[in-house]
């Protein structure tokens, strides 16, 4: 999918959207990093009493008061006050408003960036009640890669009927599933290019706020003009809600894994709505062995199976298979169709 990407200005986004959420001392360090480093930054890691680190594609840098340093000993050590202040700023001074997110271990902030949290879990009845004494924060920079879905869209469109085929996107973690789903939502919703002018109504059930990166319910990433997003909503309930009240033509959701998710997807498919979903996995055999996914695959609900991998960077399109007969429609190894 290389060569089609138009990555948004990550450096600027970090300065404008992430820096205001950092405690002043950390903010000063990150703000003054050279552009060439900020542009490729993927994660900013704050850990109590440990060096401030940024992670970029293929490497990491320790950050000292005046920029990157060679050893962890020279790096700026994040302290409790930095963490506490950063937590206050990124929760808008309102941790009480983010209980569910604290339970899940992440917050989404303006710009669609996600902040992962680690600390002491308070458990009640075997379930995490809340995370407290936060000791690690991981700012994951949201990257909008427009154009990744264009190639895939040609394979999942039934040109004769003008409908989107039921599709399952499969890859190991960090394989680019969510980025692909987001771009497909945008393309299908806007109806540009291959779809002609007829954009479709898209419903995204975004349980983990990853596809649309919603902040206070508003999508921060471009998911198209005819797209409705149910943010932080359990998939099964969300799909049913979509079907009942939002009349979507395409439902997009990520990481199906539970029985109720599969039932809701079946419901959507029988209701005549196209479904695009994703699942963790690296091969069809592996997926078939999992009880829920295996069940769905055996029933041949998905008309297209798309395999992604990390082999040539996140989002490498490996293979597209026709669901019912298992015929390969595209294979990276054979250089195309």
């Amino acid at each position, binding site marked *: 999918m290389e060569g089609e990407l138009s990555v948004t200005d990550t450096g600027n986004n970090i300065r404008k959207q992430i820096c205001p959420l950092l*405690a002043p001392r950390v903010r000063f360090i990150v703000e003054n990093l050279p552009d060439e480093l900020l542009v490729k930054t993927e994660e900013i890691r704050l850990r109590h009493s440990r060096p401030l680190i940024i992670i970029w594609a293929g490497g990491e840098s320790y950050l000292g008061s005046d920029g990157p340093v060679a050893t962890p000993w020279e790096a700026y050590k994040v302290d409790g006050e930095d963490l506490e202040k950063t937590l206050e700023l990124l929760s808008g001074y309102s941790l009480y408003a983010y*209980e569910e997110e604290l339970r899940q271990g992440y917050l989404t902030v303006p710009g669609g960036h996600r902040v992962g949290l680690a600390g002491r879990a308070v458990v009640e009845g075997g379930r995490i009640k809340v995370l407290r004494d936060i000791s690690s924060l991981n700012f994951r920079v949201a990257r909008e890669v427009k154009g990744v879905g264009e190639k895939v869209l040609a394979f999942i469109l039934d040109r004769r009927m003008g409908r989107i085929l039921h599709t399952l996107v499969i890859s190991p973690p960090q394989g680019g599933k969510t980025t692909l789903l987001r771009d497909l939502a945008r393309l299908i919703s806007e109806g540009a290019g291959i779809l002609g002018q007829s954009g479709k109504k898209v419903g995204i059930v975004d349980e983990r706020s990853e596809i649309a990166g919603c902040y206070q319910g508003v999508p921060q990433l471009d998911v198209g003009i005819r797209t409705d997003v149910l943010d932080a909503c359990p998939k099964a309930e969300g799909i049913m809600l979509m079907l009942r009240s939002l009349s979507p033509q395409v439902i997009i959701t990520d990481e199906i894994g539970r029985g109720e998710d599969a039932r809701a997807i079946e419901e959507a498919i029988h209701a005549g709505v196209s479904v695009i979903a994703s699942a963790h996995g690296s091969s069809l055999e592996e997926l078939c062995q999992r009880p829920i996914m295996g069940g769905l695959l055996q029933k041949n609900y998905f008309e297209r199976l798309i395999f992604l991998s990390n082999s040539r960077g996140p989002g490498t399109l490996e293979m597209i298979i026709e669901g019912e007969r298992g015929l390969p429609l595209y294979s990276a190894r054979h250089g195309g169709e």
Partner: protein
Amino acid sequence: MYLKLLGAFLIVSAAYTYGYSISLKYRKRVLQLEELLLGLEMFLAEVNYGLTPLPQAFRHIGRRLKDPLGRLFSDAAALMLKSRGLSARECWKKALKKNYDALELSREGMEIMDRLGFVWGKGDKSGQLNQIVVIQELLRQALREAQNEYRRNDKMWKYLGLLGGLTMVIFLL
């Protein structure tokens, strides 16, 4: 003679006004504590039913309360919204400092105000609610004391002013 009478009248009214202004301070203290309690009640509702973020909750409360308490909440909200890395406590402290002259609180009252700075936005929902309830209890106690003081001092200062003025006039005449 008329001049003397006018002078006497001026002295008595000045002395009475002085006494009245002191008694007014006690009244203001009571009113401001009542207003703050009302503000905390509103905050509990904002958190409990709306999970409203702190700056927005402060802005709503600021609009509904009378000054200077209303201004205090509005100023703190404004500081949070344009924050350059200030914590909630720092924003509250700055807003308190700005409105300090208009606040007629006792030392205990100011201590409670200061303590509120440590509480805003801290903990999960139930933690935040519990902390505010504790502060409310402290405020109610401070309010009871302020009401007692007001009852004790209101009439005393008004009479003292009036009688002081009259005594001064008698001496002068």
